[in-house]
Every structure is written in structure tokens, then in C-alpha cells.
């Protein structure tokens, strides 16, 4: 067994731990159970001790981390379940199916909480668009997300997308899903004693066997033939499964729900039992199969898609079966809960595995040596080279640069309205807004992260990610309630990699505390590196907030003659900025510092202005700084503006920084708005006025002027060419 353990990649010290917990040698099947359950993907061996530090409590929190998704209250008895999840490795192998099954998986997580999935966001990272393979991956991933999300009828309402050299070999594909539920319908992965456990949905085949373990290994150089079978998503079956499951919950037929994700039956059943403080006996002969001759290991580890596990309420077994029959789906009891706290597996009438559930669920954790990568430090401390460029040209070039260009070519492929809840579609606001029909409540959501900041300063980068996602939610008028984090990093087994993991989580912790935002769910994907090159530490942060639906702000100038104001500092910084990269090809310098108290105040202030109806147009300043943000505000309605700035240098026009927001106020309410800001002691400046068909900027060095149409054309073209070409 020890040899087999080595062959399938179980480290020696873990094999010893297995012997100790079992008090005997595992058999072959048991060894594979440990293999998948103790994979980084399932067990969070390296991140668990660090994640413990994050704040998880909050007024709105109904369910924190530890379940299939987090849940927050939004009022009037409604709650929102949400979570982000990565599907990086499968997407690198087969972008279309990898992304599609990623979407399917996160949707089932949300269903498991008893919530109806109502929105998706996607957070994508690829190598530079000039790279042919990166383009191929981008196109495949976007098509795959569209394929699954559109067909299952969950709108994709937002996301973010960055190109960066660091993702050339390791693209990132994370999907976030939000679900809506009545508080009383909240479900957990629980079962009481002696209950049958039902298997529902698609039949089991040999798909993605060992995928969970695979996801935690470095992408090998194996030939394509050697790679595990690709999992194929079936959004059609997924839709039927979703409706049947939600109907069963609605009709109050189930006490517990659990999706079958990574490590399939093994993980879903053993965790369900473990969380319930019970054991489970699984009869593999009852599992519906698609292929003949599947052995116990294959059945236990298969990652066939569109499958769920349900525990009926006592006496509701028949009704549950009936619901699934109506939707044309298998729904059969395959297991039952038992008092002994073991995961017992029967195959052809014999016990083929029996392992304490606790031993499977609680893998050893690691705390490792951390040390900053000296190269990162060197880059961060590299002085910013002197920059000289014509601002007129620079704005056009920045707008056309891959990280700033319009994402329309991406989100146009996603149905962002199905469900008739979408009140702010992508491109109209900094965050998506969904309407809870039948109420005046709205839900806002946005996911964000800047790889340049995180690469040069992992801690600060993580703080920015949370601050920006939260700011985006605030500028549409919503109060941020909580967040989910998708942590994507390199191997923790090097001191540099572990340092980045540690720093990233430390940054999140600091920002969470300062902004008063708890984490309620998340995902960790490590070992995103190849040839010793780690991806930039990437903490994709998805923030969810709540608003009064009629009091929402858009990002585009709509009415001529409104006053344009800047809240926050006038000048930005050039370290790690897009304009620096554009002009020099370098990613160096210290990313903008962030004053978290200021951040909180600025967000509160803009929410107040929106709630009071003083502004209906607000947009945060991000990559590309002031002029890019102004240009972006002219795009949705083609309305221009004339503004005056006190400084004309590149840092003032294109520098970046946190806690900055542009917004407009009708003239007659200007005094009221500024008074509010003064009361809060916040810096602001009146920049100018909306109107006309140009963006006109008066600087001490002269007047800059662009046709809105010309800016728009420059901004729209690049990604269209990549995606449609």
C-alpha cells in the first residue's frame, strides 16, 4: 500500500498519518478516499490555519463559511446565498467545458442552500491577448460560460477580466453565483440519524476521475492523451435538476441538501455525515451508472456533472421521488445515515471501505516557512522612470489597452437579463443590481482584483481588491454586507509562495476589519504555477450589498448641465499603474497606498448622497485614473462634459488611487451635496459640468479635447477584435 500511496502522490508523512488515524493499513479503495479528501482542493491543508483569521461575523450573516455557500439577510425575510469558485485547471485543459462545468458547479452550491440561483459573475485572468493560446482560452471560456449560464437561465450580470503575463500558462476562471431565498427555506448539508440519502440527477460515468486531486497538482507536461477524461456539462439536465431540487425544497420535502462537486460521492456523503455528527453507509450497487463495469473507486471518485444529494424529511420519500420523476430525473436512495461515525461503502454486497468520517474530513494542515520573493521587492522598490507623453494620445491608447478596453464583446454573449430581475446590466453601473420582485429591495454585486497591485504587494493588493469591489457596490447605492473570496495562488510549498498566501489573507483581514465586512464563503486554488513561475497572488473578491431599488446610481452622464464632482484625492499615483505599463512596458513601483478609514467614509458618503437623491450618477476611479473614469462616464449615453483640473501631469490625469469617486449633482442641489461632504470632512472638488459631445479638460498646460465618439470607438474595438476575430 505504501508503494501505491507514493504512486498516486500521497506524501510519506501523510501516509503515516493515515495509518495512525486508521490504526491499520488502508485498503486500496480507502487509500483513494484519503487521496481525494486530503487533496489541497478538498482539504485546504495550507490555507485553513490562515483563513481562520478572517472576520466572519456580522449583523447580516445567516450562514458563514463552512457550508456550500454563505448567506446574508437582506430584509423583509429575504436572504442571499453566494459563493465564488475556481475552475482553473479544467479550463486550461478544455476551456469551453472547463468553464461550463465551473458555472454548473457553483450553481449547484447555491441550490444546496435552498436558494434559487439568480445571478452569475465571472472573474477571468489570461495571458496577454497577443498570445494565441491566451486568445484561444479566452474565447473558449467565454463561450463555455455563455453556453451553461444562458441555457440554464441564470443571468451573468457582471465580472472582471484582466490580461497579464503572469497568467500565460495558468489562466484563472472563477465563477460567482448569487441565489435568493426566504430565510425559512435555508438548507444545510445535514441529515438526522437513520435517514435515507437520495442521489438525484445525471447518471455516473467515468468523467474526471481524480479531478479533485488533479486540480491540486501542478499542470503536468503530460501528453494530452494522458490527461483525465474531460467532464462535460449539460445545462439542460442542470436546469431540470435545479427546478426539481428547488421544488422539493419549496414543498418542504427535504431536511438536507448537498451538491456533488469535487470528489463526487465520496466528498458529498462523507462531509454530510461528518457535519451531522454521524456516519453513512453507501451502497454503490444502487448508484445509477452510464457506463458498464465501473469499479468502486471509479464510482466513488467520479465527477460526473449535474448530480445532487438530498435527504428527505421523514415520510416525504415518495413525494420527493415523484417530484424528480416529473422532471424526468433519477432520484434513488443510495445511502443512509448510521450512528457509527464512519464512511462505510458497500459494493456487490461487501464492505469495500470503512473509514472514520472525521479522519477523512480533517486532513493534516501545514504552517510553512514564509519569505518574500526578493525579485518582487526589487520591482516594488524600483523608482518610477520619468514619463513623458501627450495626454491626448495617452487617453486614447489607455482606453484601447487590454485591461481597460470595453468588456462589451464579452458580456454581450451572456444573457444578463433572464429572470427579469436585472436592474443594472453590465456596462451601465459599476456593480450589477438585481431586483427582488415583489419588494423594493435590490441586491448589488461586483467582483474585483488588480493583478499588478497584488503582484507587487500581495497584502496591499488584497486590501485594494476588497476596497474596490466594495466601492463598486457602494457607488450604485448599495450597502455592502459581506464578501466571498476566490484565492488563486502558486504553490504554498515554497517560502515565496507561502509568503504570498499569508500576506494576501492578512490584507483581506485588515481590510475586512476596517470596512466592517465579514467573509461568508470562498475558495482556494493553489499550485497555479508552471516552470517555477507563480501567477500573481490573486484574491478575487466578490462583494454583495443591498439597496432600495429606486435609489440606484448608474455610471453614465445622463443629463446635461449637471455638476461633475470628484470625491477623494485629486492626484493619483503611478506605481503599478496602467499608464506606467502602457508607456514603459514595466510593472514596477509601489501600488497606491490605501487609508481604509477614508475608504469607509468615502463609501458611506456616496451612499448617503445616492439615498438622498442628490446624485444618480456615480463611478469609481480605478485603472487609468481620472481621465479614463471621465471617459467611461460619457460612454453609456454619449453625453460629454467639460472639467477643469488643477494639475496637468500624468499622475494627476492617469494616476491611480483608492477612495476616489466621480459623481454628478443637479446644480440646484450642489450646496446640499457639498455640505454633506464637508460635514464628513472629506476632500472633494467641483470639476465642471456635463453636456456636449466632447470630453473637454482644462489643465494648467492647456486644453485637452476629445470627441466622445472617437473615445468610444477606441475603447470598443480591441476586445471585439480578439473575441470576434
Amino acid at each position: 500500500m505504501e508503494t501505491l500511496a507514493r504512486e498516486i502522490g500521497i506524501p510519506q508523512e501523510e501516509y503515516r498519518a493515515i495509518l495512525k488515524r486508521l490504526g491499520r493499513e488502508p485498503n486500496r479503495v480507502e487509500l483513494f478516499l484519503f487521496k481525494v479528501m486530503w487533496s489541497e482542493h478538498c482539504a485546504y491543508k495550507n490555507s485553513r490555519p490562515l483563513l481562520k483569521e478572517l472576520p466572519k461575523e456580522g449583523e447580516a450573516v445567516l450562514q458563514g463559511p463552512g457550508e456550500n455557500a454563505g448567506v446574508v439577510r437582506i430584509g423583509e425575510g429575504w436572504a442571499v446565498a453566494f459563493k465564488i469558485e475556481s475552475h482553473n485547471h479544467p479550463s486550461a485543459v478544455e476551456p469551453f467545458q472547463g468553464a461550463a462545468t465551473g458555472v454548473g458547479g457553483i450553481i449547484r452550491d447555491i441550490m444546496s442552500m435552498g436558494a434559487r440561483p439568480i445571478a452569475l459573475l465571472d472573474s477571468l485572468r489570461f495571458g496577454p491577448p497577443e498570445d494565441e493560446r491566451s486568445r484561444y482560452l479566452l474565447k473558449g471560456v467565454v463561450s463555455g460560460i455563455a453556453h451553461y449560464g444562458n441555457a440554464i437561465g441564470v443571468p451573468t450580470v457582471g465580472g472582471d477580466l484582466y490580461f497579464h503575463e503572469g497568467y500565460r500558462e495558468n489562466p484563472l476562471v472563477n465563477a460567482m453565483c448569487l441565489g435568493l431565498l426566504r430565510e425559512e427555506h435555508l438548507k444545510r448539508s445535514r441529515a438526522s440519524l437513520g435517514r435515507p440519502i437520495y442521489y438525484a440527477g445525471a447518471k455516473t460515468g467515468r468523467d474526471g476521475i481524480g479531478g479533485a486531486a488533479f486540480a491540486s497538482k501542478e499542470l503536468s507536461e503530460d501528453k494530452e492523451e494522458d490527461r483525465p477524461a474531460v467532464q462535460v456539462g449539460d445545462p439542460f439536465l442542470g436546469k431540470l435538476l435545479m427546478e426539481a431540487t428547488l421544488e422539493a425544497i419549496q414543498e418542504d420535502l427535504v431536511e438536507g441538501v448537498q451538491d456533488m462537486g469535487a470528489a463526487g460521492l465520496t466528498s458529498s456523503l462523507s462531509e454530510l455525515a461528518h457535519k451531522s455528527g454521524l456516519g453513512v453507509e453507501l451502497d454503490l450497487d444502487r448508484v445509477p451508472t452510464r457506463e458498464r463495469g465501473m469499479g468502486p473507486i471509479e464510482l466513488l471518485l467520479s465527477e460526473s456533472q449535474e448530480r445532487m444529494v438530498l435527504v428527505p424529511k421523514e415520510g416525504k420519500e415518495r413525494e420527493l421521488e415523484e417530484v424528480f420523476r416529473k422532471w424526468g430525473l433519477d432520484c434513488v436512495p443510495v445511502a443512509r445515515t448510521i450512528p457509527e461515525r464512519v464512511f462505510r461503502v458497500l459494493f456487490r454486497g461487501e464492505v469495500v471501505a470503512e473509514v472514520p468520517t472525521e479522519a477523512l474530513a480533517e486532513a493534516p494542515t501545514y504552517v510553512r516557512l514564509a519569505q518574500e520573493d526578493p525579485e518582487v521587492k526589487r520591482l516594488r522598490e524600483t523608482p518610477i522612470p520619468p514619463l513623458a507623453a501627450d495626454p491626448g494620445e495617452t487617453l486614447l491608447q489607455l482606453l484601447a489597452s487590454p485591461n481597460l478596453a470595453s468588456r462589451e464583446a464579452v458580456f454581450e454573449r451572456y444573457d444578463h437579463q433572464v429572470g427579469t430581475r436585472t436592474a443594472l446590466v453590465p456596462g451601465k453601473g459599476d456593480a450589477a443590481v438585481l431586483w427582488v420582485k415583489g419588494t423594493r429591495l435590490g441586491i448589488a454585486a461586483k467582483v474585483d482584483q488588480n493583478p499588478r497591485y497584488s503582484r507587487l504587494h500581495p497584502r496591499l493588493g488584497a486590501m485594494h481588491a476588497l476596497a474596490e469591489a466594495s466601492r463598486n457596490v457602494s457607488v450604485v447605492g448599495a450597502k455592502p454586507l459581506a464578501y466571498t473570496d476566490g484565492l488563486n495562488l502558486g504553490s504554498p510549498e515554497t517560502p515565496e509562495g507561502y509568503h504570498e498566501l499569508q500576506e494576501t489573507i492578512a490584507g483581506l483581514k485588515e481590510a475586512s476589519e476596517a470596512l466592517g465586512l465579514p467573509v461568508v464563503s470562498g475558495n482556494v486554488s493553489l499550485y497555479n504555477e508552471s516552470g517555477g513561475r507563480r501567477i500573481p497572488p490573486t484574491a478575487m473578491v466578490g462583494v454583495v450589498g443591498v439597496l432600495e431599488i429606486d435609489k440606484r446610481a448608474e455610471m453614465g452622464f445622463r443629463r446635461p448641465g449637471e455638476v461633475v464632482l470628484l470625491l477623494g484625492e485629486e492626484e493619483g499615483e503611478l506605481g503599478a499603474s496602467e499608464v506606467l505599463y502602457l508607456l514603459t512596458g514595466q510593472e514596477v513601483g509601489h501600488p497606491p497606498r490605501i487609508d481604509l478609514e477614508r475608504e469607509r467614509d468615502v463609501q458611506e458618503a456616496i451612499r448617503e448622497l445616492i439615498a438622498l437623491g442628490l446624485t444618480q450618477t456615480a463611478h469609481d476611479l480605478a485603472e487609468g485614473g481620472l481621465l479614463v473614469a471621465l471617459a467611461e462616464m460619457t460612454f453609456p449615453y454619449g453625453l460629454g462634459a467639460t472639467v477643469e483640473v488643477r494639475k496637468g501631469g500624468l499622475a494627476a490625469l492617469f494616476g491611480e488611487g483608492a477612495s476616489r469617486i466621480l459623481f454628478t449633482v443637479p446644480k440646484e442641489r450642489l450646496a446640499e451635496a457639498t455640505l454633506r461632504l464637508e460635514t464628513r470632512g472629506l476632500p472633494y472638488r467641483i470639476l465642471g459640468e456635463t453636456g456636449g459631445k466632447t470630453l473637454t479638460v482644462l489643465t494648467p498646460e492647456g486644453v485637452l479635447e476629445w470627441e466622445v465618439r472617437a473615445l468610444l470607438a477606441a475603447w470598443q474595438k480591441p476586445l471585439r477584435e480578439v473575441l470576434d476575430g
Partner: protein
Amino acid sequence: MKWAIVRFPGSNCDEDARFALEKAGIRAEFVWHTAQDLRGFDGVFLPGGFSYGDYLRAGALAAKSPVMAEVRRFAQEGRYVIGVCNGFQVLTEAGLLPGALLANLNLHFTCKEVGVRVERTDLPFTRLYRQGQVLRLPIAHAEGRYYADPETLKRLEGEGQVVFRYAPLGEEAHYNPNGSLNDIAGIVNERGNVLGMMPHPERAVDPILGGEDGLPLFLGLVQEVAG
């Protein structure tokens, strides 16, 4: 007034259709694709979505559902049938409307707001619009390129069966989002009681959702009955 909304496996705009019908004051009930009886309904709505995953061809498999025989009978009696998006595809696949909907020329799913011109206003569906009015309506489809052979097309145009046509909202030159022949966005049968259209009026019935240009279509149905 009571309308049936047919639910095929994979329909996903069924709730949206109900929302719009109810907003217009029409009672709406879901009817399963196996239903054999549509008595008691004043109209049938075939919603958008991906019936049977849009596998084989959009709408092809749903067109063979048991309920479609009943929808055909229903239409032959002169009662109202509306198919939106996937519903339109089902209607053409079932032969209740002429022509076919092929893959968009850009070859991908396209979700955005488009301009849609109202070509005739003597139908219950359009009586509350102005002739030539350009509506803002969302589209969301991958197979919406209307195709019919030249003869059929000529007949459609001759008989005034083209109800909705893509049109510019502003000055844009490329306003036809999918390559439909003659910019066709929606048609009726000869008798004028079966309407198929690719744009989604049911998604544009409330200012919160970004527009209300779809609402008069449903209100028109109510008025028609009220006389």
C-alpha cells in the same frame, strides 16, 4: 382573461412571461409540455429559453412535444398564440409559422438592446403602438436569423405578415443584430393570430428593468377582449 404559458423542459423565460402577463392584468398559468388540453385559455404563450437544451436545433425537439398538437388546434380555432425567442423557434419548427431561424451571422449568443420598428398596428399585439414606432427591446439569442425561401418571403411581405423589423435606435449603421432577411424580427401567420418574435417584450415591462416598451403588447391583448 387567462393565458397558458407552456413549459418545455429547458424553458427559462416562463417566469418572465408570467410576470409580464400579470403586470398587464392577464391571469397566467403554467402548462406542462405533455398537456393535451388547452380549453379554458384565451391565449397560449410559448416562452423563451433552451427547450431540450436547444439540442439538435433551437426549438426542434420541443416542436415535437405532445402539447404542440394542441397548440396547433388552438391556433386553427383562431385563438391567440405568441412565441417569443425560443417560442418563435418552436413555432417555425412546428410549421405554425413559415421560415426558420438560423445561427446569428456573428455565430454567437447576443444579448443587448435593439431597435424594433412596428410595421402594423391592426393586430391585438400591436394595437397600442404607433405605426413605424421604434421600440427599445432586448434580444438574447444565438439562433435568430430569420430565413425563408424567396417565394415565402415575398408572400410574407405582400400579405403584410412582417410585424416587427430591426431598425436603428440612433444613427447606427449595423442595427440588424443577427442577419435576418429583410431585418425581420417578428411575423404573424396569415390569419393574424399567431405571433412569433425574437426580441423579448416580456423583459421590458418595468422601468426598473430598463424600459417599458414591451408592456403595450400585453395591454393590447387585454384591450382587444375589452373591445
